[in-house]
């Protein structure tokens, strides 16, 4: 979709039309959520909040449904079979579950609470991994090409509206903020279950210090309580957006150079020599980032939950 649109811009520039290729606007259009005035499904406003389904909400549902169906289907098929030797997808699933339980959850939350918190941490891991990874697969660009050459749907159709905006749900700060809010709640629940509700809040500062120190310490600890999920939010969203922006910026060199020299050969040359190899390299890096960010989010959630359970000053 990016290529198609930019190619039109490039062609226009090559023919000497005045329409300039705006790299910034094009990139933002391909990373941000679909605009509020043309969502996928229009829904009424309730209490001043627009409940219309946008691209990122749609992706969120798609990812959640895909993860739910694939995981439950795999596990049920495994439970139905005669011999208890996992095969195929179940093998991979088991390896990941074991990794999350033994290397992320257990060292942080401890042996006693590991089965209380592993489900939450596993859910985070699978959801974030799937949502991140789906952003790397150009599903909607293929749909766009199909639409352009085969389907020919009208202006404003569902397929056309599907092409606006980015595909990575976790690149949206609102999505990651919601995930981090769950962590925020989980920290409080973990502390309350381990020590009791009042004791959890008392645990935030070490006991038996000079009263004057508490004047400084308590505001700092309260700030820290909110900064942790905020950092989680920003880290995931910024990492997912950053990689996509880098790839798009490098690809937009093609059209910038076409425009600069007024001919398509310059752009194609730059594309073949610089843009495509660099974009491939960054895409490879993105695959790593997708895995690492899913791991980081779950690890830090586990660490914060563990800090509420094992208080030491």
């Amino acid at each position, binding site marked *: 979709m990016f290529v198609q649109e930019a190619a039109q811009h490039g062609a226009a520039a090559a023919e000497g039309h005045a329409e300039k290729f705006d790299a910034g606007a094009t990139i933002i259009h391909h990373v941000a959520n679909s605009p509020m005035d043309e969502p996928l499904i229009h829904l009424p406003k309730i209490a001043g909040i627009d409940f219309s389904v946008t691209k990122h909400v749609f992706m969120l549902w798609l990812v959640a449904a895909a993860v739910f169906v694939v995981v439950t289907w795999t596990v049920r098929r495994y439970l139905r079979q005669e011999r208890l030797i996992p095969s195929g997808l179940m093998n991979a699933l088991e390896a990941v579950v074991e990794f999350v339980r033994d290397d992320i959850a257990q060292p942080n939350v401890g042996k006693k609470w590991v089965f209380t918190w592993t489900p939450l941490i596993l859910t985070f891991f699978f959801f974030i991994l799937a949502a991140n990874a789906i952003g790397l697969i150009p599903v909607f660009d293929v749909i766009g090409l199909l639409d352009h050459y085969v389907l020919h749907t009208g202006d404003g159709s569902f397929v056309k509206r599907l092409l606006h905006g980015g595909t990575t749900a976790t690149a949206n700060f609102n999505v990651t903020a919601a995930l981090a809010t769950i962590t925020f709640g989980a920290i409080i629940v973990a502390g309350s279950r381990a020590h009791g509700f009042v004791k959890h809040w008392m645990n935030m500062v070490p006991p038996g210090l000079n009263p004057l120190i508490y004047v400084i310490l308590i505001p700092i600890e309260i700030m820290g309580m909110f900064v942790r999920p*905020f*950092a989680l939010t*920003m*880290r995931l969203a*910024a*990492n997912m957006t950053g990689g996509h922006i880098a790839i798009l910026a490098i690809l937009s060199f093609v059209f910038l150079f076409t425009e600069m020299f007024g001919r398509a050969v310059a752009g194609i040359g730059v594309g073949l020599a610089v843009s495509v190899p660099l974009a491939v390299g960054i895409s490879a890096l993105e695959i790593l980032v997708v895995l690492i960010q899913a791991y*980081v989010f779950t*690890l*830090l959630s586990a*660490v914060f939950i563990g800090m509420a359970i094992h208080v030491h000053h």
Partner: protein
Amino acid sequence: MTGLVQFFAIPFGLGMIVIGAGLGIGKLAAAAADGIARQPAAASQITGAVNLPLFLLEGVAILAEVFALLVLFLGK
């Protein structure tokens, strides 16, 4: 004033953030490599111990970058 912020202050700040984060990550990586070279048996433990401060450091750097870009976009 906007031009000064846009073309000097924010790129300068972004560069400073990168220098700070690079120094921090470099120190961590150097210490980890050193430790693993001395005691290869403890490699997994050392990696585990290095990971957490690494991610926290990265988080701070990303927060700073996000705020710098917010100033750029919202300050217009």
